[in-house]
């Protein structure tokens, strides 16, 4: 197993994908949050509560949750690359116990996901606190709470990366897998929420569970307001974490079990 993890790390570090991914984390975390804080949520169209309110800070951090498709896509690309470049056969020749290969990949990519999450969270925290200080705004949440929320978002990024790995192992075709993963996380879930009845499922969908982590209710509230339906209640943060954890486990199980007996041609 340590052999396999060393191999997966070598595979990961041999291309520059990981550099690109961490740059993306800094751009989305520091860049996007910094820019939004600079403009101020109160100047958005439609306007959001300002940074000096709790809702305003939660909303800003909650938007970070919507960038989860990036690590998810990275996980999908990593796993499907083996099928796309036909190295899966070589890999399974060197490691015929296939579940171990996927376990090593999950462990390796969990580390990458954590690195992504930490870069995202730390640059976001730095940007938010710096901009707030520069604008002379007192944040609606104490700094330690902001950091705790960002910590939750980091962990959510690990989960999404693993969901991406699991979906990649399931679908195998790189383009198709990317379309499904990005399509669902970027648009699919929002579209689902427009269907009356189905939108009640939102709290237990990945996006809803992620929003629960930061108690980011803006999207859910806006949706129920627009549709004139009952307010969608997000899960408590701990339950949201549990739901996300279940998604990661399911994705991991898919990744471990599916390639077991499949013919590699």
């Amino acid at each position, binding site marked *: 197993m340590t052999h396999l993890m060393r191999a997966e790390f070598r595979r990961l570090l041999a291309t520059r994908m990981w550099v690109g991914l961490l740059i993306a984390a800094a751009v989305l975390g520091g860049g996007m949050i910094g820019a939004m804080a600079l403009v101020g949520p109160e100047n958005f169209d439609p306007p959001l509560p300002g940074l000096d309110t709790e809702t305003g800070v939660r909303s800003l951090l909650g938007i970070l949750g919507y960038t989860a498709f990036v690590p998810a896509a990275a996980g999908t690309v990593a796993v499907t690359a083996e099928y796309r470049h036909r*190295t899966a056969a070589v890999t399974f020749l060197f490691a015929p116990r296939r579940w171990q290969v996927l376990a090593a990949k999950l462990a390796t990519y969990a580390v990458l996901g954590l690195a992504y999450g930490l870069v995202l969270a730390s640059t976001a925290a730095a940007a938010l606190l710096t901009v707030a200080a520069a604008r002379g705004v007192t944040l609606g949440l104490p700094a330690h709470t902001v950091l705790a929320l960002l910590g939750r978002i980091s962990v959510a990024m690990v989960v999404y990366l693993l969901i991406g790995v699991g979906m990649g192992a399931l679908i195998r075709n790189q383009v198709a897998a990317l379309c499904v993963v990005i399509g669902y996380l970027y648009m699919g879930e929002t579209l689902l929420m427009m269907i009356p009845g189905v939108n009640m499922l939102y709290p237990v969908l990945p996006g809803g569970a992620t929003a629960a982590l930061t108690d980011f209710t803006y999207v859910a509230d806006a949706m129920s307001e627009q549709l004139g339906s009952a307010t969608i209640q997000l899960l408590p943060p701990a339950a949201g974490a549990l739901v996300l954890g279940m998604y990661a486990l399911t994705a991991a199980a898919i990744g471990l079990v599916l390639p077991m007996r499949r013919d590699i041609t």
Partner: protein
Amino acid sequence: MSTDGLTVEVSHLTKRYGEITAVRDLSFTVEPGVITGFLGPNGAGKTTTMRMLTGLVSPTSGTATIGGKPYKRLARPSGTVGAMFDANAFHPGHTARDHLRVYAAMGGHPDSRVTELLHQLGLAEAADRRTRGFSTGMRQRLNLATALLGDPRVLLLDEPGNGLDPEGMAWLRGVLRGLAADGRTVLISSHVLSEVQQLVDDVVVIRRGELVAAGPWSRLAGPPAVLVTSPDAETLAATLATSHANAGTVLRVDTVGPGLLRVHGLDAPGVADLAAAHRLRVHELVTENTSLEQLFLDLTTGTLTNDRAATS
């Protein structure tokens, strides 16, 4: 250096994909110390068989073992068997060294082996170039290097000569000869029969997923024929026929054209001596080895007698 070889054994192997039977009740063995050619036209089931041998494809029924064990049960799979399938199984963004280092780690083989193989297979200069720019020849070399990482005693190579130029083929023949001489078990598949003719000791011929023939190439090919050009062809043919009756050997003389005979069962010196003894003129004597291609056509069209096609 390998000392004791491992036998590869395929026993009643069958693979069905829905309605299509890719491999049907196939049995053969591959012995160590020699190069065995696994031959058959495209789509005969060679690749499927080799993938079943390495556990990549699950057989519908039957077994495939290496040294008595299925591939997946080997304690050190890549240290026992080196297999090579696809000529393009590389991440285009990886260098040759990256590729080998990934699999060296995976198989638990030392990194020194990577440098060693890059030199041994003539890839040292290309070692740090990304594989996306590799030529077919370089890809085949890198493929072979990957298979050799664990210094395996068994080599299963699917179409290793595909896309190689004559120089590359000569190089490959040298490498494979050396590997077999070390006592390794070497199975190479090919649909280009002329390509492996000078290389193989044993052959396994399949067609439509079924065994056609297996055994030492020399036995399957039979003794060479002699092509005789002579202005006295008719008399010579009659003389040969008479001498055959006296010697009691199996001898066959075919008249190929005017003044041209093909003699089976007697070698060139024998024909020359006989002609001299009877004061018959011979202008040219050519020893004709059976080509693998000819043998293959004979086998698959069923013109060969059963004893030569007998499976071992």
